[in-house]
């Protein structure tokens, strides 16, 4: 589903964020990308949604090299990859329902699809009773659920999460992880960047470790540290 071939990313200020990365993620896998801050986790995710361009190498998503994708084809790529962020990126002046519906509206889905799919996905994340609340009226954990609902409402085959539990307490984080596991069980490929040791250790999923931009470990049922 996802393949990195000799991927190198050097930023404009000449710092190398990723060095010659080779990595394959199969369809339906759940992968943790771990490593300390600045190891290149976020860069990896940003490359996948073409938020930034690669310096060298190739990235294949569903068999297609996304590095030479035309700008006009990038939206198509992003519609197939749901993204979840540490800071949720919810729009404060839209309700929970509107925030999720927004993701469907901007890709041109008709109103009846929106009316059908938004309540469904909000039920999946357990927020069907807070549809008309505004983001500031709900807790941080609930906000992250909304952002997961928004990422998943379009049923993308891939879900990327960049430190989704970074701003949450352990109990709330656990809930978020259960939700991501459920989404993974439906058949969605999930890649999650994190430096939360407890979560990685309790889940026992594939672990890919980065250090200063280099891939130093790839374990099938790994833990955070060796």
């Amino acid at each position: 589903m996802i393949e990195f071939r000799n991927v190198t990313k050097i930023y404009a200020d000449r710092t190398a964020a990723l060095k010659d990365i080779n990595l394959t993620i199969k369809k339906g896998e759940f992968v943790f990308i771990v490593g300390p801050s600045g190891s290149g986790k976020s860069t990896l995710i940003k490359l996948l949604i073409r938020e930034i361009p690669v310096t060298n190498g190739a990235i294949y998503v569903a068999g297609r090299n996304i590095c030479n994708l035309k700008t006009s084809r990038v939206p198509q790529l992003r519609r197939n990859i749901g993204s979840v962020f540490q800071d949720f990126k919810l729009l404060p002046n839209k309700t929970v329902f509107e925030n999720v519906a927004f993701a469907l509206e901007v890709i041109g889905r008709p109103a009846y699809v929106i009316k059908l799919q938004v309540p469904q996905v909000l039920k999946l994340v357990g927020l069907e009773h807070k549809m008309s609340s505004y983001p500031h009226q709900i807790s941080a954990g609930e906000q992250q659920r909304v952002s997961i609902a928004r990422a998943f409402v379009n049923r993308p085959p891939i879900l990327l999460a960049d430190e989704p539990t970074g701003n949450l307490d352990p109990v709330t984080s656990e809930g978020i992880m259960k939700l991501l596991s459920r989404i993974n069980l439906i058949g969605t490929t999930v890649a999650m960047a994190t430096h939360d040791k407890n979560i990685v250790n309790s889940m026992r999923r594939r672990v890919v470790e980065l250090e200063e931009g280099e891939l130093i470990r790839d374990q099938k049922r790994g833990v955070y540290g060796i």
Partner: protein
Amino acid sequence: MFRPRYFFGETFTGMRRNFLMFFTAITTVAITLFIVGFFLIVVYDIQGILTSIKSQVEVAVYLRDNITDELKTYLESEIKGWDEVAEITYVSKEQALEKFRKENEGSEILKEVQGNPLPASFELELKSPEKVEQIALRFLDKDGNFIEGVDEVIYGQNYVQKLFQITAITGSIAFLIIIMLLLATVVLIFNTIRLSIHARRKEIEVMKLVGATNWFVRIPFIFEGFFEGFIGSLISVVLLYFMANYLLIRGEKAIADTMHVKELAILGSNSVILYIYAGLIVLGGLIGIFSSTFALKRYIKI
């Protein structure tokens, strides 16, 4: 995939939710374009006054008393053939004296006048007053003397040249000021719209991340920019209309009565004022569209 309901919906929701920014943008457009419009009217009137003064420039060709009728007729037909001359009037010695008497009625000078010391003359009205000097020069021969039968040629030598200089200078100053005003207007409106887009950069980021195409993001903002420019310029035109018809028009009436100026912005027979109004509205709409398009460039690049 044009979906008017979504785009108009987004545009109006955007405007309602960011009412303060929307209001600021409209006010900025209204005030700046009002100043531009006001200045255009004033400049047009000044140019009208100057043109009217220029068209009153005349050349008087005084003839010698001993000129023969043949020479006089020859000169008249010759001058009539010149392209620059709009009209030629012959003023005889008697007519000149009559005129002089009328102009100085009741004055002591008349008692001093014995016989008729006044010369006959041709009075020339010109099509292009700028060429007055060349025309005057035609009455000189190679040696710099007046040609036969002509005593003197008078056209307000110094005054005319200065007048033309002044019109040229005021014209270019007005042009410069209008350009600068327009530039300031564009920059001010652009900045206001940019701020209102900056306030919604998160929205743009989210749109781009969930896979909205660039045009899908752009269109509501362009609509909004257009509405801001259009409504703002409409307000400026309404303000200008009332000011023109209740205040400026009095000034123009005074000018028209005392100086016989025909080309005035509001009173004039041509519809300059309508062109100014239409121009401001078109300008407002265009500035709105271009400002939002250019301001978006930075935020849409995700």
